[in-house]
């Protein structure tokens, strides 16, 4: 894979058609995967309104995202009162189990003491739900940076160290997910773990909160996701897996609290990566790979061969969050394609990916175009914003990552595990196939 040298990237004073999402949105995403959690963006109303807009279009779900609605005066005179009011109102209306208080560029620039305000609130109104403060200034990193800050803050706040007398619960396994895992992916991993006879505990668990369901009663969009009691029980697990490097430190922290073992899984997007993961689970669980998984594997192998000629040697351009890039690159390379350019929407070095991709401070679509100009590209995969640029430059496009609004059911799609990869191959292969079979004179 090609890469700009960091020097090249840093020179740019502007970003055109950027892919980078900002940190508060990433932090909010973690709380959307927690049961009865409400994330509050500590900033002006617009911060919450805009982030809510993007998340709503992607998930096609109500997004419970609050705001401290700062105004000129509160910014100048201090925001403690706004924090108090926001917490008061949120607790009375939504009755949340946990609240995420997420800073923004505004409050980080003004140097607001949000921790102090939250502590004081707890003192003055005891008995309320835990309030997890996450620092996510828009000007530091992107979605992944905010996501990581949030998942680590949640672990610190909600996963207690395992007590000396408390044994591990046999077969219970913690799964800490990075932002590359949508609801469909989380579901797939949980299903795999459960199929191996183990008990999965996921953080965050978008598969039950943001999976798009219309249940009885609960209309506020707060139902589903990891509960506080799930988090409390995480310290009773002997094994913790984290998925994607963005979740690695959180996974390590959980394992440290449980005094158990931690394994980071960079991706589950190739057949052998899934095989290896199942081997790990086998060693933990001691059982057998069940028939259902074997059927999925047989189907995956068959499809890999059915589609291999479509992927062999094609040149792909990717743009997205670092974890997603790692996963998607593995899937393409595993099928014989080459990734000729990858642009990260957040700084890959900060997540341990420095060997592969250029710095992502300025990762934008303009860069994406610049990289492949002069070389033929068979497919461009990025979030839906890429569609317009891809169309303009004549490159076949397929949306992936976040936000995606040009296809339906995307949050439920999986690309990991035997079944996820099997579906991914059909999805991507069908897109690639559109280049075939068209008669030249038609």
């Amino acid at each position, binding site marked *: 894979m090609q890469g700009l040298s960091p020097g090249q990237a840093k020179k740019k004073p*502007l970003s055109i058609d*950027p892919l980078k*999402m900002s940190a508060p949105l990433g932090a909010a995403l973690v709380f959307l995967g927690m049961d009865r959690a409400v994330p509050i963006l500590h900033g002006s109303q*617009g911060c919450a309104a805009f*982030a809510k*807009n993007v998340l709503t279009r992607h998930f096609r*779900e109500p997004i419970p995202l609050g705001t401290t609605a700062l105004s000129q005066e509160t910014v100048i005179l201090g925001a403690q009162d706004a924090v108090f009011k926001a917490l008061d109102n949120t607790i009375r209306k939504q009755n949340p189990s946990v609240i995420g208080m997420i800073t923004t560029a505004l409050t980080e*620039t003004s140097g607001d003491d949000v921790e102090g305000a939250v502590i004081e609130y707890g003192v003055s109104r005891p008995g309320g739900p835990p309030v997890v403060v996450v620092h996510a200034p828009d000007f530091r990193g992107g979605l992944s940076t905010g996501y990581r800050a949030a998942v680590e803050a949640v672990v610190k706040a909600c996963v207690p160290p395992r007590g000396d007398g408390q044994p591990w619960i046999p077969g219970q396994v913690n799964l800490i997910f990075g932002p590359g895992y949508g609801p469909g992916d989380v579901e797939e991993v949980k299903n795999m773990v459960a199929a191996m006879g183990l008990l999965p505990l996921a953080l965050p668990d978008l598969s039950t909160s943001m999976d798009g369901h219309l249940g009885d009663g609960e209309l506020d969009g707060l139902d589903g996701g990891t509960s506080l009691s799930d988090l409390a029980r995480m310290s009773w697990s002997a094994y913790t897996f984290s998925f994607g490097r963005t979740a690695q430190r959180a996974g390590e922290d959980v394992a440290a609290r449980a005094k158990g073992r931690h394994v980071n899984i960079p991706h589950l997007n190739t057949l052998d990566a899934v095989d290896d993961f199942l081997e790990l689970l086998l060693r933990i669980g001691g059982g057998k790979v069940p028939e259902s998984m074997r059927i999925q594997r047989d189907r995956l192998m068959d499809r890999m061969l059915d589609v291999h000629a479509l992927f062999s040697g094609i040149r792909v351009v990717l743009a997205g969050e670092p974890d997603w890039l790692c996963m998607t690159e593995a899937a393409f390379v595993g099928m014989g394609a080459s990734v000729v350019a990858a642009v990260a929407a957040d700084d890959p070095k900060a997540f341990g990916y420095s060997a592969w991709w250029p710095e992502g401070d300025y990762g934008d679509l303009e860069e994406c175009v610049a990289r492949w100009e002069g070389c033929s590209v068979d497919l461009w995969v990025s979030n839906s914003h890429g569609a317009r640029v891809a169309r303009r430059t004549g490159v076949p496009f397929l949306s992936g990552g976040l936000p995606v609004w040009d296809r339906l059911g995307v949050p439920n799609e999986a690309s990991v595990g035997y079944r996820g990869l099997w579906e991914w191959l059909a999805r991507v292969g069908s897109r690639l196939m559109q280049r075939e079979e068209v008669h030249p004179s038609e």
Partner: protein
Amino acid sequence: MSSGTSIEEKRKIVDEVLTVYPKKTREERAGHIGVSDPEDAGSCAVANNVKSRPGVMTIRGCAYAGSKGVVWGPVKDAIHISHGPVGCGQYSWWSRRNYYNGILGVTSFVTMQFTSDFQERDVVFGGDKKLTKMIQDLDRLFPLNKGITIQSECPIGLIGDDIEAVARETSAQIGKPVVPVRCEGFRGVSQSLGHHIANDSIRDWVLGSRDIPDEGTPYDVAVIGDYNIGGDAWSTLKIFREMGLRVVALWSGDGTMQELAHTPRAKLNLIHCYRSMNYICRHMEEKYGIPWVEYNFFGPTKIKESMRKIASYFDDKIQEQTEKVIEAYEPMMQATIEKYRPRLEGKKVMLLVGGLRPRHTIGAYEDLGMEVVATGYEFAHEDDYERTAREVQEATIIYDDPTAYELEQFASRLDIDLVGSGIKEKYVYHKMGLPFRQMHSWDYSGPYHGFDGFPVFARDMDMAINNPSWDLIQTPFES
């Protein structure tokens, strides 16, 4: 349709909804919610344009949204820099669907996104140098741009950057307008102040004089406050042109910097979205003596009324031509009503939108036999509520900046058939089993303005309400 009893009933509903609040909040919110009563002139004049309470799920945006997202963004041949961190520009990117003609990246930049992508060092050391460099680079990369605007995000206002100085300096360098807009998100209580700030920035940095070296005609008009969402302005222009008027400027959907600058040549300013653009109309009236008239192009009743009102500012020729145009479209309007009215008659609508829509669309719904039983604004002012009073039926509930809770309560207590609001609310009402249309962006459809827009409007309301899916929202099995 309604009656005194009905007014009482509605007041009772409002009271019931508010009882859950603590006393202080209840009193405060009561001021924001009225029930229209022809006997009581002030019944619709609810409290407005005050700060939302932190922690409520308001759907309001911020000043940046009002400037970049609404007023400035659609000006197609200028480059609008989201100055500050990446999120604001990123999240609002292409969510308003302001259509335009032109070649993207060459003569038009509407659906592109430019940001200075502030990093920590920019916050610490200031962003003026970066901004200067960026403007120079942009002008080099896109030489056909006709101007550059600086849309300030929150940190700019805090770190003491002097974007006005940068604007003056770079404008001289590139020989084009560079417009600093102080639309930091923390200013004001909603996007509304952003509209005002943006209007003022056009006034101060762009607007020209009446001495424009082009021959005007007696029929020159400017269209103000049509953002061409889904092609709205194109439907609008068609009508004015057919009436015999010459549209010299379009503010601001599919509009250009030159049109903005040359607007003072207009003999009459036609304003659709009063909330977001009244400032500039008042300014032009004061400074150049240009009169302005409000119009409403939703639904045949209001379209015809508006056309005749506008024509009355001109001579017989225009007035006769206007009648001919109305006559020509009559069969299409009738056919639309005949097709959809039987399917929509009596359906009850609840609205919560911004700008002009909470009152302007009422006529269009009524043309289809529907009733707007509750309506309100995200970010209206006193004058909006005054105007609303003239449009609503008796006993309509009117709310200002309602909370999600209030809306959900009204929706279920008023037995609503259709909710019109924004994308952020859409799926909440879906979960309640309530048909919903996005009334900011027309839900990826449009146009809704003008004669061409009405059949689209009617079809969309029909498809939302009469889809068979709504009948299936129940669970048949016991748990």
